[in-house]
């Protein structure tokens, strides 16, 4: 028997203990996440033949995606929706986060932030329904405008693209406020003093110090928005109705109406690819420069 060096022996014990502790979480992730995702990938390579999943590997589902405007259009709608929601949410969240971080007295900031994001904790089903109440033909907004005499007939505010955008923007303004605030609160206030001291104007301080240092928070917010907006079925279904379908709606349509799970799988793969691309594009911006 060869004797091990104490270092190697200790290392083996540590490894074994570590693996035992990590195993449950790792196995759970492999069995209930990686395997299902690979199943989706696999299933997307089979096509429905006469009401059953066929036996031959084929790219038919992807071909259908490429050829049929219906699928294409839903991807484009998803991309457009994601772009508009991301831009609008960040544009609204930034001033809110900056106001809380720089103008609200420090001891009130946490309270203020908590207040600003409390409705975030609503089920997305409930939140979308709540917007429906506000936007309905006889809902709060229309009744108010009618009462004020600003309009004569109710405006069509729900069941369209704009309503979906509004529902998402409402949710993500709160989320992005959290991520952007986290970035802004970490800025050393002396950096702003130093910039002023070196002659920078308020505008220069903002564009050259504050905004670049908020990039990790903006990128984190953008990424979370992209993941959810690309994949959410509920908000577009409740607020957008059946107009301008987005990718998750066509996926659900394939499952529920057509029973074509392989096509749904192929569309899901396309969705994952888009999100992965967004991640790769934003990954470098997610970490802050730390001096």
């Amino acid at each position, binding site marked *: 028997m060869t004797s091990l060096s104490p270092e190697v022996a200790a290392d083996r014990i540590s490894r074994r203990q570590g693996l035992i502790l990590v195993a449950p979480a790792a196995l759970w992730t492999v069995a209930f996440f990686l395997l299902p995702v690979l199943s989706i990938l696999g299933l997307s390579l089979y096509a429905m033949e006469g009401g059953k999943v066929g036996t031959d590997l084929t790219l038919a589902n992807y071909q259908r995606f490429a050829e049929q405007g219906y699928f294409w259009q839903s991807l484009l709608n998803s991309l457009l929706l994601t772009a508009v929601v991301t831009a609008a949410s960040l544009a609204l969240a930034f001033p809110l986060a900056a106001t809380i971080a720089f103008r609200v007295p420090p001891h009130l900031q946490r309270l203020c932030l908590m207040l600003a994001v409390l409705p975030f904790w609503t089920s997305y089903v409930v939140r979308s329904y709540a917007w429906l109440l506000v936007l309905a033909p006889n809902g709060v907004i229309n009744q108010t405008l009618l009462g004020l005499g600003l309009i004569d007939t109710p405006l069509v505010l729900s069941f369209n693209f704009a309503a979906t955008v509004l529902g998402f923007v409402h949710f993500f303004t709160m989320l992005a406020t959290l991520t952007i605030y986290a970035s802004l609160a970490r800025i*050393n206030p*002396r*950096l702003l*003093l*130093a*910039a*002023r*001291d*070196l*002659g*920078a*104007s308020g505008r*220069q301080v903002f564009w*050259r*110090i504050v905004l*670049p*240092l908020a*990039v990790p928070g903006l990128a984190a917010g953008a990424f979370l928005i992209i993941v959810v907006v690309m994949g959410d079925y509920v908000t577009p279904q409740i607020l957008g109705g059946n107009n301008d379908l987005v990718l998750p709606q066509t996926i659900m349509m394939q499952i529920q109406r057509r029973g074509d799970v392989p096509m749904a799988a192929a569309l899901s793969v396309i969705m994952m690819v888009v999100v992965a691309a967004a991640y790769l594009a934003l990954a470098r911006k997610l970490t*802050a*420069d*730390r*001096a």
Partner: protein
Amino acid sequence: MPQRSDLSIRNASKHFGPTRAVDDLSLDIPANTYVVLLGASGSGKTTLLSILGGFTAPTQGQILLAGQDITLMPPARRPTATVFQDYALFPHMTVAQNVGFGLSVRHLAKPQIAAKVTAALEMVGLAGFGPRRISEASGGQRQRIALARALVTEPAILLLDEPLGALDLNLRRQMQDELRSLQRREGRTFVHVTHDQEEAMAVADLIVIMNHGRIEDHGPPERVYAQPRTRFAASFMGDSTILPAAFGPDHADTPLGRLPTRPMGGSAVAIRPESVLLTEGEGTLPLGLLTVTERVFQGAFARITGRIGDTDLRLRCPPADAPAPGATVPVHLARNGAAGLAD
């Protein structure tokens, strides 16, 4: 060319609620002076620096630079530049972008900025570091980058807030020498805040000892050390023995006898440990027999604590000469060894 820049603080006060961080403080600083504001935390030294930099508006009083009132001038336009305590380097910029920031926001031409940045980095011994990221710089390098960034804007006054606090002892000593020679070469006024009395003595032309928002003493380091004005100044700089005293015109009566000194208005004298000698010499005065209670070896010297009668007294001597605890030795006061204090 360095401009003529006498700095004058007139009756400046800063109140935070009931606290007087700076309390009716006046001080004149001649051009080309290395000033150190020395004090414990809470003494008001940092608030005073902040008032000079334009980050804090004084509650009362005026700041004049070369005769011009700059009290309300914003930091961006003020001919001062600050080296912040943690340097406040912009983490998302390179070293060169940091140093060039003050020029860039004033819209200088790019080649001009590049030339000045190169020269500034050379001046602080960081030639060639321009393209590096801040996160790659060590503590000492960051210190120099912050210096270069402030000096490149050619301020009349450079303000340094505990600039060496984050550095280890050796680096701190080295940077003290460099700051000193930089100030000489540049010919600007440096105002340097620290709580470290050794650092203050190493760099200063003028030491200002602060306590409770007021000046306890100010003057050249040698004078402030040897002849502290107040009880606070005496105990803050080194470990003096402080004796109660009744003053005559040129002497003070203390528990150790009549000591030659000038009255400063208070009722105590301070004796530095190195002014208490184990041997007689020219102009010395016998203090009596000291019973040694403690001996601590400190490298270059030994610190002796003992008593004469009921009076505790500290002294320093070469380790080889140090008497052991329990020994009784005659001690003498060096010429001008006792300093009368104001209260």
